[in-house]
């Protein structure tokens, strides 16, 4: 056959790959991402990339106080990723976790501000947690209801809901909930009995999200509801054929998702900040989408990815103070990491054949 007429590059679908080989490709992708990130760092500030990575690790994990801050970054990231996982499994694109966190935070804060004098710590915290979950759940139920009833687009709907609740918090900050004396545009710090206790130097939210991780794993994998979510996600027609009430499943799952996000909101106001402000979610609702996706919706994988991102985030702070590299570099590295990890899935699915190498490839 005339060689020069063969196309230069061709794609062929792969047979199923062994899981060892799959993970080797993924690890190689991470290594390449770090390499590319190193080049960017070297170009951005003329720094030695190895020194920069060492600084990131040292800054995130080198000292006890640093580790605590890293864990503080880790908690909302994992919590929120767990929250959106069931929605994404159902192929309901909930990008409103940001708003659901904030809604939960608002409801929890109400009790922290106005019930702290009336209740002792444990019941107060339980009431706040419950309020957070109800708040987040109801906030998420609104777009789910419209989707189930009239088939509205959940992506835009959940996104827009974010701005409504964040605007509402701004109003609270400068209005009815503003601390005395007026003019600071801030809400008062919580009383001591409205704050989560610390365990091992960090507020106990880390225990809660780790327990949640196991529960979410069991829920998605072994419960009837988890099964329903998976079927609806694969095909709504099949779900209806199997006798499932698709609308009800959408609303129930979204409420659950919002409730978990609301619980994260409670953890943030009661544990991390001890107050409420409009940036309480701080973009974690969007970063969590990255986390959930990279982990392929596996809760344990989400913990690993959350840990990596938390280290990067904290390490980048140190990188700025010590080496003068802008903080935004951590976002750049996260982006590169995401690009490589999603990109490597392509090579797991397909094989690229270069002209003249057919036989060699086929022999494999």
């Amino acid at each position, binding site marked *: 056959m005339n060689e020069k007429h063969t196309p230069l590059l061709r794609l062929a679908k792969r047979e199923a790959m062994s899981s060892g080989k799959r993970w080797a490709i993924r690890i190689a992708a991470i290594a390449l991402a770090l390499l590319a990130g190193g080049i960017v760092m070297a170009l951005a500030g003329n720094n030695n990339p190895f020194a920069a990575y060492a600084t990131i690790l040292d800054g995130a994990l080198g000292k006890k106080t640093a580790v605590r801050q890293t864990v503080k970054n880790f908690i909302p990231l994992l919590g929120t990723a767990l929250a959106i996982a069931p929605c994404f499994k159902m192929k309901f694109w909930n990008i409103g976790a940001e708003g659901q966190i904030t809604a939960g935070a608002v409801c929890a804060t109400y009790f922290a501000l106005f019930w702290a004098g009336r209740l002792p710590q444990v019941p107060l915290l339980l009431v706040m947690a419950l309020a957070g979950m109800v708040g987040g759940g109801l906030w998420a139920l609104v777009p789910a209801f419209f989707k189930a009833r009239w088939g509205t687009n959940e992506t835009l709907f959940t996104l827009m809901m974010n701005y409504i609740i964040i605007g509402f918090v701004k109003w609270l900050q400068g209005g009815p909930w503003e601390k005395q004396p007026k003019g600071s545009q801030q809400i008062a710090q919580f009383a001591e009995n409205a704050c989560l206790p610390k365990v091992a130097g960090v507020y106990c939210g880390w225990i809660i999200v780790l327990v949640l991780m196991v529960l979410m794993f069991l829920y998605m994998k*072994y419960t009837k509801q988890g099964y329903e979510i998976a079927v609806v996600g694969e095909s709504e027609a099949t779900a209806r054929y199997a006798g499932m*009430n698709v609308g009800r499943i959408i609303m129930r799952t979204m409420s659950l998702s919002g409730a978990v996000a609301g619980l994260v909101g409670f953890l943030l106001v009661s544990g991390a900040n001890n107050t409420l402000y409009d940036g309480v979610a701080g973009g974690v609702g969007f970063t969590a989408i990255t986390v959930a996706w990279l982990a392929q919706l596996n809760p344990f994988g989400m913990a690993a990815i959350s840990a990596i991102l938390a280290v990067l985030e904290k390490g980048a702070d140190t990188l700025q103070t010590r080496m003068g590299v802008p903080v935004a570099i951590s976002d750049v590295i996260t982006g590169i990491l995401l690009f490589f990890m999603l990109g490597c899935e392509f090579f797991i699915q397909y094989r690229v054949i270069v002209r003249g190498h057919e036989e060699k490839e086929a022999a494999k």
Partner: protein
Amino acid sequence: MMCVEQEGAICLKGLTKRFGSVVANDKIDLELGRGEILALLGENGSGKTTLMNMISGIYFPDEGQIFVGGREVTIRSPKDAFDLGIGMIHQHYKLVDVFTAAENIVLGLPEKGKFDKRAIAQKVRQISERYGFDIDPDKKIYDMSVSEKQTVEIVKVLYRGADILILDEPTAVLTPQETDKLFAVLRNMKADGKAIVIITHKLHEVLDISDQVAVLRKGKYIGTVNTAETDAQKLTEMMVGHAVSLNIDRPEARYRDPRLEARHLTVVNKEGVRMLDDVSFLARGGEILGIAGVAGSGQKELLEAIAGLQKGAGSVLYYPPHPNSDLAGQHVPVDRDGEELLGKTPAQIQKIGVSLAFVPEDRLGMGLVAGMDMVDNMMLKTYVQGNGPFVDRKPPKELARRLIDELEIVTPGVSTPVRRLSGGNVQKVLVGREIASSPTVLMTAYPVRGLDINSSYTIYRLLNEQKMKGVAVLLVGEDLDVLLELCDRILVLCGGKVSAIVDARETSKEEVGLYMTHVGGREEEVK
């Protein structure tokens, strides 16, 4: 193998195509002269479509040579194929709905100058007259029937000057009468010196139209025989690799009690079109009721309305099996004088014992979850059983193992996603699950579509077993020969209306074909 020096003929030598470790085509040789019709025969997955895709420029072969008109050629794209005079008519038509026939025919042609409608229409008419097509160049595609659309596809290819035509299962969507018309046209083209390759599953069509038959089996080239020197039995043996009985049983069941009665059932779809119009019939237990009709005549809506997946007006009554029969007592008790099914949810209808093994066009669209394994698919309708929030995967796992044994399902294991299984095995998984729920009414649509002969006969056997148990089987089918052999009665739908209900033992293919296009067999066209 010789590759004759001849204009317009095509010859393949050692053509090989691999996908990963799968060899889809293994050293295929083929030769086709001008004025010849070659039927390409083979079971599903035998590599027919892969081979034709290589000739028409969609795939690029890994090894081997293609000769056109005695000259070795390289086909890298569909455009290369066109330039060599090779035209393919795909199973799924690629036409623009809002354009007329003439506009579709010239679409994409790099002709300079003004768009001259009259000249195009003139040329289209010329081609039509030459080969005996019936086509109106100014008719819009959305006004056309399936067979008219197919005609446009064929004329499109001829308009571009193709000498070698490849037709991929052209008769799958046609009525017997339309098939006859198509074959007449093909014979005219043959007389005009065109070389034609026709891919089909239907043996009697192969014998009817072709000069030669090339048989593929599991990617390998088995051989080419002259049609005049062979018969259905011999061809089947070449295709399958061993002797197969081609007779379909039609046993007589002992009980034939009324089971399901539709009265004036009407279904209007979202666009406001009447998909089912005043449909009335009675389906009995111990009987296979075939449902025939041109694709889109309301078959899907009928089954879905009964299963509770579509809203309908009128009435669908369900009569429980006799209390002394084997089927009694397995499902929730219902009104002996007829329980109304319309208005019930799919879950309620399933509990009564009405089971829908629906196999829609994309096969995995509704009955099964493609990304899930067999175990999870087995429990699709039963997962709610048992107390507590957790699912019990033990019974579905046992069922999956049992089905793999009993139905000889080929799969690496119960935890392989069903999307990885071949079409026949997917079908066995689906029908096996539905039968395992011991239904009293079993509805299936196109249960053997795309299946090889062995799998098809397994499915027929399963349906007959259910019938003998006293189950009412509703079978939507497309192959009239099979419906006539397997069913007890055939309900013919035409444009959403019941055109006729005939005794399958008495009727003929021609009669059913007539009812498919004319309500009650009247000669006027139904819109």
